[in-house]
């Protein structure tokens, strides 16, 4: 699994968990509001028997019979009505109870769901946390490993650099001696040279050992002495410089300061 995907996954899980947490925290309140309903208004039904009243009183018997029948009927009707009403009421009550029960169940379910969600969220958060911690641990371990490797490499590099610097110093020392000898071999001092004199030359070389230019940067005050130094440098054989590592050459030998002091003269 590419590592970036794990981050996306972790992020997704984290986002989901946060959403769920938000829902869990504020869900109750906002859910109640959404579920709020107007309490049911009881409907009153009243029957008005208009036909009874409109009947003529011509046949008493009929009428009485009718009356009795009617009363009976009425009584039966009332009874039926009462029974019906009672049934209705019972029904209503049952329904209300059912409703209440249902509401309660819904509420309980909601609470349970909320709790479940919360638990789930917590669980997921915990999981995520654990995952994050695991990831962090891996990352830390990786970092430590990388750091260790980097340290080791740096140390190795440092040692290598010290080693190569030391080696370069040795190389530079050896070639400096070579250059000194090559110049000394060609240096014929004029009779006016004195062991207190010093001339400073700046010498520009190329890696083949060829002298590109040489000039006096600090004169001895004796033109013939300066000239002898210039001639010595121009005549000197620096051809062995081509055996040197070009980088070492670049760092050390392209431009040289040459100081010539005839300390071997007796005066």
């Amino acid at each position, binding site marked *: 699994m590419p590592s970036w995907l794990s981050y996306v996954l972790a992020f997704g899980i984290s986002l989901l968990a946060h959403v769920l947490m938000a829902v869990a925290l504020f869900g109750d309140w906002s859910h109640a509001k959404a579920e709020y309903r107007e309490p049911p208004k009881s409907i009153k039904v009243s029957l008005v028997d208009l036909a009874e009243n409109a009947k003529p009183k011509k046949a008493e018997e009929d009428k009485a019979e009718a009356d009795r029948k009617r009363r009976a009927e009425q009584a039966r009707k009332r009874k039926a009505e009462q029974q019906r009403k009672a049934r209705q009421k019972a029904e209503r009550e049952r329904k209300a109870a059912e409703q209440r029960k249902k509401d309660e169940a819904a509420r309980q379910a909601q609470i349970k769901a909320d709790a479940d969600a919360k638990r789930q969220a917590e669980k997921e958060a915990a999981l995520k946390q654990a995952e994050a911690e695991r990831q962090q641990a891996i990352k830390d371990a990786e970092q430590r490993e990388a750091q260790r490797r980097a340290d080791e490499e740096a140390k190795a590099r440092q040692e290598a650099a010290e080693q190569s610097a030391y080696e370069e110093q040795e190389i530079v020392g050896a070639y400096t001696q070579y250059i*000194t000898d090559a*110049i000394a071999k060609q240096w*014929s001092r004029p*009779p006016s040279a004195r062991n207190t004199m010093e001339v400073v030359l700046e010498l520009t070389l190329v890696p083949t050992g060829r002298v590109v230019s040489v000039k006096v940067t600090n004169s001895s005050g004796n*033109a*013939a002495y300066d000239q002898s130094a210039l*001639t010595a440098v121009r005549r000197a054989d620096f051809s062995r410089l081509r055996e040197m590592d070009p980088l070492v050459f670049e760092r050390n030998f392209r431009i040289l300061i040459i100081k010539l002091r*005839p300390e071997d003269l007796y005066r």
Partner: protein
Amino acid sequence: MKKLLSFAAPLLLLVASSVSAQLVVEVTSGNDKPIKIAVVPFDQQNLSERTDVASVVESDLVRSGQFVATDRDSMLSKPISVQEVAYRDWRLMSVDYLVLGRINEQGGQFAITYELVDVSAQRVHDRGITSIPGAELRDLAHWVSDRVYEKLTGFKGAFGTNIAFVKEKNVGGEPLYQLIKADADGAREHVIYESRAPLMSPSWSPDASQIAYVSFESGRPRIMKHDLTTNNREQLTNFKGLNSSPAWSPKGDKMAMVLSRDGNPEIYLLDLTTRQFTRMTRHYAIDTEPTWTHDGEYIIFTSNRSSKPQIYQVHVETGVVERLTFEGEYNARPRATLDGKGLVFVHQRDSVFHIAVQDIASGRIFVLTKTSLDESPTVSPNGRTVMYATKRGDQGILAAVSVDGGVKINLPASDGDVREPAWAPYVD
């Protein structure tokens, strides 16, 4: 890409130089060898004089001990100007410098153009043109030699100066003594004065217009003064006993000499204006051979006051005497070096007489010559060369050696016994 590289190169350099400190190479010893010079025959056709100028220059330079010359026959080419120089040829022969020249003549006067070419740098190191009224080709040659010498050694050349010496010849079975003036290389001898009686101890006036010497022409020694332009002679002393070793002071107003008029030889000072004599030394031993330091403050002389000849100096103002040499049993006939720090004299070692130079401060003696019977050293006006008299077989000749003991050269043999050279000062 090339452009990029050329742009990157200085950057690289910058990095390189910032990374490591600038490497300094110190050279504290050398390998002193004479400078290898090639004096190419000069362009000097159709001149009224035949002197080979290049060969005079060459022998001047070689005689100084500081140069070795390339043989003409081995030259691959003979350029007369720098444009014609093929540097490769000269590098192959390890030639350090070329001397080239061209001479022309107009109305009996010579004009010379000379070039000193630096082979290793492949360019002209010095170039000069001159025309000296009344000069002969030899004078022009010495002028070139002086110039090359000064450029490459750092010292003024003295090739154009003169020397004086005494020559003894046998003419008609009798000795003839001549006071001779010549070029520093011994050429162009000119007789100033000659006599059947001995001549001795020539000494130049500081302006090189007069020479003082000792003449026995009247039967006993007298100090004479001779004007070289007018040939006028003047007798300066006529005392009983010794009248010897005249030495002109650096200012030319006084002359030191040896007189024994008070019993034994002492150093005296003659004021040439007032003709007053001042006695400088008072000692029962022999004091002789006076000479001046270049600042004129001291007279250096030889004395056997310590039983053996040693060199002393007397302060002219105070008369305080100080001994200068201590090494060896015989040190005599002193001459001061130009810088005042050294002393040139005759030094006996293993019963042989050499010319030696001593550093006054350290007392260290450096023997310059290996021949025996070397005498009468005289120092060139640039202080670089010591000329002296020596023997070749029975004949007295002149020889020269550089003060640091380089090549020793005998001057051309003359037709007689030559002795007592005196190197003339520079003529301004």
